[in-house]
């Protein structure tokens, strides 16, 4: 599925990721944990192709497709999705209009037919029901005036509608209260599947109680410094990241 090999990323000439190697096979959920400034968000932006995140060495492929040579929209069409830590507001554009335009752009890029309006409406209602997204939220301009929790819920809603193959969740738990965390996590879990995979970026163990990872990696100083099973997250919660200072 996702293969990252010896990835180096710079922002404005400053090295942030220094030789990161990671493999996430299909059907699995991997968690990336680490202290502030470890390069967690940089990794998600470098993979999705944000401008200013310069890959100086290394490779990243999704199902064998070289991601790094593609513009962001082409990576999205290949099935790569990022749930943003801070979802953007898009004034004047109703949520459903935005999502349908996005879905059709992806389908077009893949050489598929556009989804019809009735089919899309049906799909959007089914998904909305599961995630507790109201009709009102779907009609309002995307994320405008939404609370932090509502925005995160909309990210997962978009994820469910666009049906990506590889999902990166960047601190999806931040800004969520316990109830919202449960709803969002259930939504995420529903999207797990044998042909899909996820990378869950988080500071805290809390989210991993709901979204159970197959593997946990510790990112520090721009490299993976430790990997293990779900238990590693519990250890980290107890001991903190101090012991990785030297490893970084």
């Amino acid at each position, binding site marked *: 599925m996702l293969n990252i090999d010896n990835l180096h990323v710079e922002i404005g000439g400053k090295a942030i990721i220094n030789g990161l190697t990671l493999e996430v096979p299909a059907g699995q959920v991997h968690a990336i944990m680490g202290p502030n400034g470890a390069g967690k968000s940089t990794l998600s932006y470098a993979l*999705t*192709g*944000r*401008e200013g995140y310069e890959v100086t060495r290394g490779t990243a492929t999704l199902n064998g497709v070289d991601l790094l040579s593609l*513009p*962001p*929209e082409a*990576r*999205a*069409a290949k099935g790569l*999705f*990022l749930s*943003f830590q801070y*979802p*953007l507001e*898009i*004034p*004047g*554009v109703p949520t459903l*209009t*935005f*999502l349908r*335009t*996005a*879905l*059709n*752009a*992806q389908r077009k*890029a893949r050489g598929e037919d*556009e989804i019809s309006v009735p089919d899309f409406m049906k799909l959007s209602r089914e998904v909305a029901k599961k995630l507790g997204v109201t009709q009102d939220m779907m009609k309002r*301009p995307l994320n405008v005036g939404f609370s932090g929790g509502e925005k995160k819920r909309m990210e997962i809603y*978009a994820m469910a509608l*666009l049906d990506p193959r590889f999902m990166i969740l960047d601190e999806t738990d931040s800004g969520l209260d316990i109830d919202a965390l449960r709803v969002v996590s259930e939504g995420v879990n529903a999207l797990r599947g044998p042909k899909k995979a996820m990378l869950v970026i988080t500071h805290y163990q809390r989210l991993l109680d709901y979204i159970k990872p197959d593997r946990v990696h510790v990112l520090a100083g721009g490299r993976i410094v430790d990997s293990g099973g779900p238990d590693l997250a519990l250890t980290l919660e107890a001991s903190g990241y101090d012991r990785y200072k030297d490893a970084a």
Partner: protein
Amino acid sequence: MPAIKETIDTVESIAEYEHGFVTDIEMELAPKGLNTDIIRFISAKKGEPQWMLDWRLAAYERWLTMQEPTWAMVRYPKIDFQDCYYYAAPKAKIELDSLDDLDPEILATYQKLGIPLREQEVLAGVKGAPRIAVDAVFDSVSVATTFRAELAKSGVIFCSMSEAIKDYPDLVRQYLGSVVPVTDNFYATLNSAVFSDGTFVYIPPGVRCPMELSTYFRINAADTGQFERTLIIADKGSYVSYLEGCTAPKRDENQLHAAVVELVALEDAEIKYSTVQNWYPGDKNGVGGIYNFVTKRADCRGARSKVSWTQVETGSAVTWKYPSCILRGDQSQGAFYSIAITNGHQQADTGTKMIHLGNHTRSRIVSKGISAGQSNNTYRGLVSAHAKATGTRNFTQCDSLLIGDQCGAHTVPYIEAKTPHATFEHEATTTRLSEDQLFYCRQRGLPPEDAVALLVNGFVREVLQELPMEFAVEAQKLVAISLEGSVG
């Protein structure tokens, strides 16, 4: 929304200004330059009565004493008013019995622009397209006006200004210059002296105009100024919705367009005036393009009358334009909804004036300015309340969107309340189309041009909703095309 999809398709299919072609046709031109002989020539060509010629000559005398305004935030080389043709007309039969007599080249031009001049074409029409009566102005003359017979049944007069001067002199004499006086400003005075043609509309009392009226202005000839004059009178309790569209060929020289539009709304009458202005904006280096120096004003003369201006300004090298409302009648209402887009080296200084004279008058201003490239976009607006105008209200919302880091957005609001009984609200925002938003859209699968089109259409949505449906789609496409190449 299918319109957004359509926008995206259009952006993909059209690389640049699509109306830039020139129609090759024999023209009759007055000699270059401006003097009393030229004015007499224009007046004689149109077979005008003496009073009209006197009016023009008086305006010319006045104009000679006036100075070009320099207060607007626009920079352009000095215009040589003697190096310009003031009259250009297709050489053809003056009186047309039917459209079959119209030069096929002109007919083809309008077809190419997507403007139906043959009524049967409109009737057969594009699927689901509503019937719209069109007055087509080609350089200095009106070449065709459709659906006149049908409109006449309800008493609506819809014809060219030249015809109105001959056929309805009393109405013209009563109202022409009553909203924009001959002495109003440099360009309006120039227009009064040399105006060539334009549209005249009269809606009789209590009549709701049965279809949308529209005028399409086309500048074709080189070195020619277009000076059209439009006069719309909505008599008591009547209603009319009117749309104006404009295009011009691509030329390296700048061309002057100095129009005057006057609207008169009597008691309980309502006028909706929409403009989609797409004059040639010049090339990417800022060479050529139209100077659009236009005076548009409405007089809400009667009690409870209503006027709304909706404009989508995407073209012209330089725009200087302030569609305004004089709220004279008690409880009259004025509205101004504007989208002004500048890209490349375009400059726009546009806005409105809401002059509250009557009691309990209300006005609303929603202005959306978008600047891209190296352009400058200024909103300039005046809201004033007369000492005797009690209980007046205004709400102004003025938003600017910047795309890129080499353009400018400026907001210059003037607010004058001479009575304590006025409530004026002004809100303004300036935002930059952020890299964050753009990346967010691209991560969801939208190519950059589509993302900009979507974001910009979102920004202007509130104003687009004010346009008649069929033009809203057209305008939405135009918005996307105008910003072509502004990112990436």
